[in-house]
């Protein structure tokens, strides 16, 4: 209870809270992905695409997460630039490689679905191209941050780039309406989902499982980043104290 009462921006409080939440989060992710996989392979074949539609159960959650994680990075960047929240930059930095992996997975699984359905692994379709730009944006965020030595400046410049890059999210969302081969939204739309419950249920369970797994990965990555920053502070303190700093193991 004491942990919850502490200031949520305190990295020490975050480390204590995340240590407790992480095992539950990982267990929930494994259990729901296990159930999701069972439901995915037990689901009936699609009336047009047959069993190839099973790729949807990993492709769609990856695509949703690729956009959700970018929105999280942009939100964290806003938190850094406007509120100077101590964990905002930690969150943005931790999420970038995870987001890049999910975006790459969306692209690769999309290609593997596209070949049997469209006859090609890749077409310069508005949806595919805009997701490829999102992947390059993630790489740009990672490269920009690692190219600047000074941590504070790197954080601010990366935050500005991520806020500018958020324009890609509505482009991806609406790109299916621009002469696209890609099918329009079947689940996230104003009217009822245009997908049969026998396929919708495994999709939603897999999406829940993969989102929970992302949360666990994000907590792990944020913890690692906090430790990395503590090491940096301790090393500079050791140098200030005048002691010769011997190489550390590992």
């Amino acid at each position: 209870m004491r942990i919850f009462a502490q200031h949520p921006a305190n990295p020490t409080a975050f480390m204590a809270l995340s240590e407790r939440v992480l095992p539950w989060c990982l267990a929930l992710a494994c259990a729901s992905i296990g159930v999701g996989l069972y439901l995915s392979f037990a689901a009936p074949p699609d009336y047009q695409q047959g069993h190839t539609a099973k790729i949807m159960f990993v492709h769609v959650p990856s695509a949703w997460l690729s956009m959700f994680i970018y929105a999280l990075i942009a939100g964290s960047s806003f938190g850094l630039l406007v509120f100077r929240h101590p964990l905002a930059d930690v969150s943005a930095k931790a999420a970038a490689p995870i987001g890049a992996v999910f975006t790459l997975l969306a692209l690769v699984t999309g290609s593997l679905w596209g070949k049997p359905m469209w006859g090609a692994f890749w077409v310069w379709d508005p949806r595919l191209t805009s997701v490829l730009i999102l992947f390059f944006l993630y790489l740009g965020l990672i490269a920009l941050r690692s190219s600047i030595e000074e941590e504070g400046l790197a954080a601010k410049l990366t935050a500005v780039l991520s806020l500018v890059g958020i324009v890609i999210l509505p482009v991806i969302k609406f790109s299916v309406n621009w002469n696209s081969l890609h099918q329009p939204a079947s689940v996230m739309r104003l009217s009822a989902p245009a997908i049969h419950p026998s396929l919708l249920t495994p999709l939603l369970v897999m999406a829940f499982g993969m989102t929970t797994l992302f949360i666990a990965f994000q907590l792990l990555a944020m913890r690692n980043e906090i430790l990395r920053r503590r090491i940096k502070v301790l090393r500079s303190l050791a140098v200030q104290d005048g002691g010769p700093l011997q190489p550390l193991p590992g």
Partner: protein
Amino acid sequence: MDLGAHAAFVWAAYAVVAGALALLGLWLFFDGRRQQRLLNALEARGVRRRSQGESR
């Protein structure tokens, strides 16, 4: 399990996702262990953050 004529594409998609997420998880796990080891080594030399004087 018979997944039809395009089974290889379905299995490949699931294998890529499983492999990539497993690698990502392992990288995060071992990176965390490495950072913790480095931090412990510094603290063992008596280097402490100022805030550690009062509480941990």
